[in-house]
């Protein structure tokens, strides 16, 4: 069976909400009815048929041929199967995913992987601010699963993260891992100022010592660490990194002592 493919006709004239186009939400919908699903966010009421040419029928494998920074909420609540966007996506890509695989072959806007609980989100270029983070009023951000950003992420990556693993491979903006509750944020390529700001628990793993750290972090030595070896091996065998991140005995800063204080920033010495 050929993947259910949505081929973009032209750049969308307004922001879109693509959350109805997941395997779970399309299940049971007649193929003829798919074209009538409303995606536009304005009074124009743009539908799938207005924006895309639809082909294929395998609901477990959905492809968007052509992307746009106006594609909001791609793969929201994905539970199973795969969604692939050949191009950019807008805000909240993969928000509240629970399983499956979402691949964005381009850039995403803010809040990618927001409040994920499971599954895997891969962004091949850059992600915006608040990677995995909560929307206003929500208490926790990413709550499980795996996010990989092959390029850069903006500020507040891993904001209020609670579980799971997020990896950013070409650096991220300031306040990485801010307000983390737990979980693991991996950053190679450098972080901006004040990583781990107000983190309670959790781990921020870096390939170098952070340049600007909040004074409420304390230096905690560098004993040999089996955890570092096991984590390094996982990151390499899972195809996230090409070489080990932390080494045998990474340095550690503990904090943020302005709050709970049992978080950690581990870095390669």
């Amino acid at each position, binding site marked *: 069976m050929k993947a259910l493919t949505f081929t973009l006709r032209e750049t969308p004239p307004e922001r879109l909400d693509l959350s109805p186009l997941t395997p779970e939400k399309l299940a049971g919908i007649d193929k003829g009815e798919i074209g009538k699903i409303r995606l536009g966010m304005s009074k124009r009421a743009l539908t799938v048929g207005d924006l895309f040419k639809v082909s294929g029928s395998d609901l477990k494998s959905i492809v968007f041929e052509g992307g746009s920074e106006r594609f909001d909420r791609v793969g929201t609540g994905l539970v199973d199967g795969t969604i692939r966007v050949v191009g950019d996506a807008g805000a909240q890509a993969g928000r509240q995913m629970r399983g499956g695989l979402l691949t964005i072959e381009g850039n995403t806007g803010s809040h990618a992987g927001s409040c994920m609980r499971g599954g895997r989100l891969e962004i091949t270029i850059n992600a915006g601010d608040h990677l995995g983070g909560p929307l206003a009023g929500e208490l926790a951000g990413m709550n499980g699963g795996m996010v990989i950003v092959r390029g850069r992420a903006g500020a507040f990556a891993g904001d209020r993260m609670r579980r*799971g693993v997020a990896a950013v491979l070409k650096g991220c903006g300031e306040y990485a891992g801010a307000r983390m509750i737990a979980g693991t944020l991996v950053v190679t390529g450098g972080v901006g100022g004040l990583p781990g700001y107000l983190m309670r*628990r959790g781990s921020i793993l870096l390939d170098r010592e952070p340049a600007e750290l909040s004074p409420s972090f304390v230096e905690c030595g560098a004993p040999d660490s089996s*955890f570092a070896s*096991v984590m390094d091996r996982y990151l390499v065998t899972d195809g996230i990194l090409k070489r080990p991140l932390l080494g045998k005995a990474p340095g550690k800063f503990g904090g943020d002592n302005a709050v709970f204080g049992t978080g950690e920033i581990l870095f390669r010495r």
Partner: protein
Amino acid sequence: MQRLIVNGVAIDDTFAEAFGMRATAIIITGPNRKWARQAAISMTGFATSVIGCGCEAAIDVELPASQTPDGRPGCRVMIFAVSTDELQKQLQNRLGQCVLTSPGSACFADLKGTADLKLGSALRYFGDGWQVSKKFGGRHYWRVPVMDGEFLCEATTGLTKEAVGGGNLLLLAESNAKALAAAEAAVAAIEKVPGAIMPFPGGVVRSGSKVGGKYKGMTASTNDAFAPTLRGVVKSELDPGINAVLEIVIDGQTSDAVAAAMKAGLGAVTKLGPAKGAARISAGNYGGKLGKFHYHLKDLLP
């Protein structure tokens, strides 16, 4: 009893009788081979027989750094017990007292089974609130701060109900030295069989037992039929000229592992021959009263 002869060694046409057990396996790693072994040896100390130790345990195989989860030298340790509760109790006590305390150690699950036994999820409380939970790659770890850094321990390991305890070989020789040589040859061969352990000291038992005894409360007592000094006094199994008997006891992750181990042991002892080792090989057969697994020596001949 009929006897077969292989390379001059007589083999009784009998069977070893074994019974079902609960078992698990873990990998213990250390900063080097010496300390990985030390943790494993301490953990499996005083674990020869469920009769008096609660469990039977030993190192299954030593692992090079390339084959362990954290890239350090390690040992695969197997632990056997008669019930799931007893296995969990022994695992928890031994892990806490012998592995957690050993310098630079870490501990990983190495068996997928029908149920989970607690490893780190029982020990984590030693961290007094500073322990850290980490889940990645489908596995769950606990990191417990200790004085030389951190004790990394996987949260759970698997339980198998397919395990078999009590596979055995009896090696009958002219002298103590020859019996010991035969036993050492068997142990060296069986050590290479994955999934099978020999829990007794160095893999060898000199006090093979029979079921029950004349004194109240004794569940096992000396195997008088195979004790050379009682020959003639009791109904003995020993021929003239046999002065020492040693036993190899084998526990296996599966029945096939026990059979493979016994086959390897038989091969090594018959290869050694009666001039240097055992003149005769027999097996502990309790008339079908002990367990449902029967390993006939004639089926396992080299």
